[in-house]
């Protein structure tokens, strides 16, 4: 014991130095946005590799289930393709408006208020910031920062996200947020009081945001509330997707997005 104390006392300046420097770096990455971005980015790269190998093992166990869901999706797409053959508009638009990149989620957090996920693709595979992430059941998230080989994305279970969504039947639109209460539900706000909303209505994405394609299903209306003193509904939406067991997603990007954004910018000037 005495030796230990002597040791600490002897190197007291070294220990003070290490502790103070650690505090400084903690402050630096917590309170400064550019350093935090870089810290997250590089830790992504290192941590991403670890997660990838873990998820490789995990995905073996889920292989059957994934196979099934992909086969189902394939079948549905095939059916859709058949139904639109002969539709002149679709054929006239020879270049598709959406770029779709399949990704695997190698880390997915659902326990905190602002959940993030990590994808196994990055800039090299054509991913960008603010691309929408969807799968066969609905929306999953939005990419946040892209590294060369990995990408971090906001999960839709993130209290900072605001997603434009509508009641599919009546076409009234509002803002979809997550209130950090239950990972199965999100809340749709700003739907005006006169809107005709029923339990069981489908909620889908709108065409207003350039992140998600329009009419991607999100969930079903589960509960309608009228907060006192407000002029809008607060609607609980039961998600189609179970975010706790998701592994394959598609990153989608509206390739005409830039045209749209530029035009809106011009109008603002």
């Amino acid at each position, binding site marked *: 014991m005495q030796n230990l104390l002597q040791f600490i006392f002897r190197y*007291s*300046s070294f220990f*003070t*130095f290490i502790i*103070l*420097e650690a*505090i*400084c*770096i*903690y*402050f*630096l990455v*917590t*309170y*400064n946005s*550019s*350093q935090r971005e*870089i*810290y997250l980015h*590089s830790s992504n790269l290192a941590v991403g590799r670890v997660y990838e190998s873990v998820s490789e093992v995990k995905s073996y166990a889920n292989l059957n289930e994934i196979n099934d869901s992909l086969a189902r999706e394939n079948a549905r797409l095939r059916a859709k393709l058949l139904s639109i053959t002969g539709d002149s508009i679709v054929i006239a638009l020879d270049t598709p408006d959406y770029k779709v990149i399949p990704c695997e989620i190698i880390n997915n957090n659902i326990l905190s208020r602002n959940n993030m996920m990590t994808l196994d693709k990055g800039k090299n595979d054509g991913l960008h910031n603010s691309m929408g992430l969807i799968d066969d059941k609905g929306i999953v998230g939005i990419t946040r920062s892209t590294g060369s080989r990995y990408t971090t994305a906001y999960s839709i279970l993130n209290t900072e996200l605001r997603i434009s969504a509508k009641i599919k039947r009546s076409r009234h639109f509002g803002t979809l947020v997550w209130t950090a209460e239950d990972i199965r539900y999100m809340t749709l706000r700003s739907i005006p009081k006169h809107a005709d909303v029923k339990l069981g209505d489908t909620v889908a994405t709108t065409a207003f945001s350039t992140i998600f394609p329009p009419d991607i299903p999100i969930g079903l209306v589960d509960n309608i509330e009228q907060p006192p003193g407000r002029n809008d509904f607060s609607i609980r939406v039961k998600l189609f997707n179970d975010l706790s067991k998701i592994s394959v997603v598609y990153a989608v990007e509206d390739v005409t997005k830039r045209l749209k954004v530029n035009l809106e910018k011009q109008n603002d000037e």
Partner: protein
Amino acid sequence: MSSLTVRNIIRTILFILVQVLVFKQVALGGADFNYFHIIIYPLAILLLPIDTPKPLVLLIAFAVGLLVDVFYDSIGLHAAALVFMAYLRPVVLRALQPDTGYKKNAFPVASVFGLLWYLQYSGFLLFVFLLVYFSFEAFTPVYIGSILLKTFLSFLVSFALVILHQIIVNPKR
């Protein structure tokens, strides 16, 4: 509190004020060539008495750095660099130690040890400070070129002012 302590505290506050009120506002290279940063407040650590306890020097450096950070809106950045410099100070002092050793209560100033000694002492530590500062600012080795360029250019102007301070004020202690 001895008059020496009071003196050091007032001097430290003055350095911080001059740094954040005057030199922070100066952009020598203009807005497009922001490579000249004038940084003189490390003098507050450089001029501490030589036999100040080492952990105390580190704590003072941490406090001074954080204070400057508050004004620069970069919590942790100045503090990290200044603590690093403060940790190296005893090493440099030992390397530059005269044959007779340091007297008790000696001050690391030019009027006691000569201008050449002071140039080596303050030059090395100031350079280390700036190098660490700009490295932590960029926070990635990707911009090593611009880190080094900033360090050299800022060192030129800052070091000139540090020497000027020594010549004009010529502190005895």
